[in-house]
């Protein structure tokens, strides 16, 4: 991976802000969708698509690309917005989110957007798919394959048993080029994760399943990039990065409120959110 310069870091912070603005515009236009998680993951998506991932927007199906599986499909507004800013989609297309005939389905569907690695929405299935991709790649290219595999998970979806089945297999197979990133924003649809179904001690859980664990500030580009670098240097286990994030990050009236998990801003709220984001640039 390249060295992260201050200049690049500052550029990426600005890019994350633009992506957040796109997310707000998309959600206002759609009239439904998931705000909090989408805003909270903007920094991680930016770091991945503008620094970490080996990919080529002009050749989305490039065989040598790294693979990224979005398990928590409901935060697709930030996924689509990042893909558009990275050059995979026209920016204009973002306003078709959730509309009839759009490639930007309410939850990602690869029949509509062929270059997606998978379709997602029903929670808990992404990590196992990333494990399967990694296993298949190892069969072809061996243990030291240059490809990296990433899976983005929400914390709420860790309630699903399928996740822990994937965790066990990833550890059993010592998938060293697999990195899971957990959006630890502490909320899910019906409330705070620790009220709905406590996940803590989360770090110790993953450690006890034989994964390499790092806990970071999911809004700090330097920490995100650094943690991925460390994960790639771990040679006997898969890695998980528990990224502490603020749901609704960047829009003060949404921040840390679980009520914003699954609803969009109104037109007026959208204006307030956009002016706040613009003022931060």
């Amino acid at each position: 991976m390249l060295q992260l310069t201050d200049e690049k870091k500052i550029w990426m912070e600005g890019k994350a802000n633009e992506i957040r603005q796109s997310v707000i515009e998309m959600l206002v236009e759609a009239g439904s969708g998931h705000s909090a998680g989408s805003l909270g993951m903007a920094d991680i998506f930016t770091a991945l698509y503008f620094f970490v991932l080996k990919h080529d927007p002009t050749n989305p199906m490039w065989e040598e690309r790294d693979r990224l599986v979005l398990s928590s499909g409901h935060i697709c507004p930030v996924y689509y917005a990042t893909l558009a800013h990275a050059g995979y989609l026209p920016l204009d297309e973002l306003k078709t989110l959730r509309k009839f005939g759009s490639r930007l389905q309410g939850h990602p569907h690869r029949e509509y957007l062929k270059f997606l690695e998978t379709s997602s929405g029903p929670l808990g299935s992404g990590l196992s798919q990333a494990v399967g991709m990694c296993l298949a790649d190892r069969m072809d290219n061996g243990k030291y394959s240059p490809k990296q595999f990433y899976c983005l998970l929400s914390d709420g979806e860790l309630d699903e048993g399928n996740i822990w089945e994937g965790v066990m297999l990833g550890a059993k197979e010592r998938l060293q080029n697999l990195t899971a990133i957990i959006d630890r924003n502490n909320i899910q649809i019906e409330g705070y994760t620790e009220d709905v179904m406590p996940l803590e001690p989360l770090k110790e859980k993953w450690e006890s399943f034989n994964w390499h664990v790092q806990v970071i500030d999911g809004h700090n580009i330097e920490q995100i990039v650094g943690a991925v670098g460390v994960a790639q240097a771990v040679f006997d286990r898969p890695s998980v990065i528990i990224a502490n994030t603020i749901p609704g990050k960047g829009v003060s009236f949404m921040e840390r409120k679980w009520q914003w998990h699954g609803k969009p801003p109104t037109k007026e709220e959208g204006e307030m959110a956009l002016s706040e984001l613009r003022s931060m640039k």
Partner: protein
Amino acid sequence: MLNSSLNKNLFNENVEKVSIRFGFGEGLVLAADKDKNVVGLCADLNESSQMSLFAKKYPLRFVQVGVAEQNMVTVASGMAAMGKIPFASSYAMFSPGRNWEQIRTTIAYNDRPVKIIGSHAGISVGPDGGTHQATEDIALMRVLPNMIVLSPCDAIEAKKATIEAAKINKPVYIRLAREKTPLITTEDTPFEIGKAQIFFAPPMDAQVGIIATGALVHKAIIVAQNFAQKGISVKVLNIASIRPLDFEAIINLAEETNAIVSVEEHQVVGGLGSAVAEVLVQNYPVPMELIGIHDKYGQSGTPDELIEHYGMGVPSIERAVERVMQRK
């Protein structure tokens, strides 16, 4: 009478019997020999689903996921995304029984060419009891867009179904039975996804058509033979491909006989009988009787006891043929 490509020994008491799942085991090795992208996954039922033959020959292409059927199919989906042709096997009750949504979203909705192998399907699993008797799996799978559903009648057909499944770039479900089943077909019997075949045809126009699938096809042929000896002509259509279904063969049989009996080791709701009825009611409605399980769960017993008790034995099929003739 009997399709000339079938086993001549079929009506003999000592007809050779082989578990349908053994055909899968053999077919998978043949498919894997041909294509290095064929991989196998199993959820702690390697021996009993007969994936073991493949696992022994190709250990580096085999993944043991433990007792975790949801994981098995989602991992398989990921492998298919990288160009593999994964075969994921377990008992039908657990896969597709337990992991239906994962199959729906990550395999069928995604249109990934994963092959789901459900062994020990039907009630003839026997002593294990109702929890292990999958009588709903055809319904679960044939409702999914993109999914191909195959239900072979013997081990040889299962081998061919496995080889064909590996070749087609679509998700496939193959339903296998545990019990030893008489060999009906031979290596020469044609097999094609989407095509049904007449297995037994009297020389004159038939009065009743039996449309059967899986291990009960043998009983359907015995019934047709018994009626032939009484001068009543009954044709038997074998349906190995439940989806896509051979509409033409079903409609032709209904036009000829005006009386249809469906036979399956599955709930009559949602299974082969329903599929046939859907075709006929829209194209050529005729009286129809459905042999299968009627709104009940299974229980412990020998396969023969259970087949008789739940109305799928030779006498039950014969009575259904008589009933449907009276309804013409």
